[in-house]
């Protein structure tokens, strides 16, 4: 179970780095936070899990989306 969650986190991290659409990256980062909160709960660290879920999936997603809204969402097309 831990190995499955960790490999999912790794796959989502690679996707967040490689995605051309930044909004997709932010959603992938939020999913990483949720999965690691689940992992912390399994490893019996509920305090850390609450922090990770509230900060990672909640507040930082809002801030990232705000930043994307004020800048550029997609990569420029390569010539």
């Amino acid at each position: 179970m831990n190995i499955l969650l960790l490999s999912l986190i790794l796959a989502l991290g690679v996707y967040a780095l490689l995605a051309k659409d930044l909004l997709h990256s932010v959603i992938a980062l939020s999913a990483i936070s949720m999965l690691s909160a689940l992992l912390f709960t399994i490893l019996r660290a509920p305090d850390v899990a609450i922090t990770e879920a509230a900060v990672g999936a909640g507040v930082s997603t809002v801030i990232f989306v705000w930043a994307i809204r004020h800048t550029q969402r997609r990569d420029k097309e390569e010539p």
Partner: protein
Amino acid sequence: MKKLELIKIVITVLLCSLLVVPIILSNHSWPTHARNYLLANAQSDTGATNTVSAIYLGYRAMDTLGETLVLLVSVTGTMAILVKLGKEQTDEETTSFSLTPEKRPTNRLRTHLLETVASKLGPIVLLFGFYVMLYGHISPGGGFQGGVIVASAIVFLALGTEVKSKLTSTFVLSRIESLSFLLLILASISGVFFESGFFGNPIKSASSLSANFIILLNIIIGLKVGTSIAVMCIAMMGGSHDH
């Protein structure tokens, strides 16, 4: 071009594994001395059932003060940048979130779904945040976690309701933030007058009431964290001019 990227990825993975593999392969046993001490003494020393709370508000309360200072400085810096940003583009972005759909210049990001869900969910999340904050000494959670949940509840309310309320105005929220930081300093000094030192528990550790100091610190830190993050988010969404 493709080959170069592949080489970069391989080098990065190799460097990462150089750091991580020794940790995985080592069979050094976990340190047990501090853990055993905390398991035996944490509840009687500080009165908190939750050992994490006992550490960060009992044994290491000084570090918590430092963390609060870090948050204060970062929020101050963010607000300084945001206020300057708001002066340059006043009309475009400041009004876009908290207006009715007809008056809004861009209503792509605000739908009926957002309004309905956020305004109904906000009070429930607020209640849960205060629960996590107040019961931090018994159950998992504490001031910081509860404060962040309270902050997201305030952001929900700011997004979901069209009526301006005291809870979502940055003026009131920043006053609460300053007041709770003052209270934190006063509470930390209060131990000095009861012979237990800076950030010491003013209530004697043997009595059953000694968890009350941890509850007080949890409430103060929760209000501080919650209001400062909420002020930051509301100011980002363009509500900083409504006081």
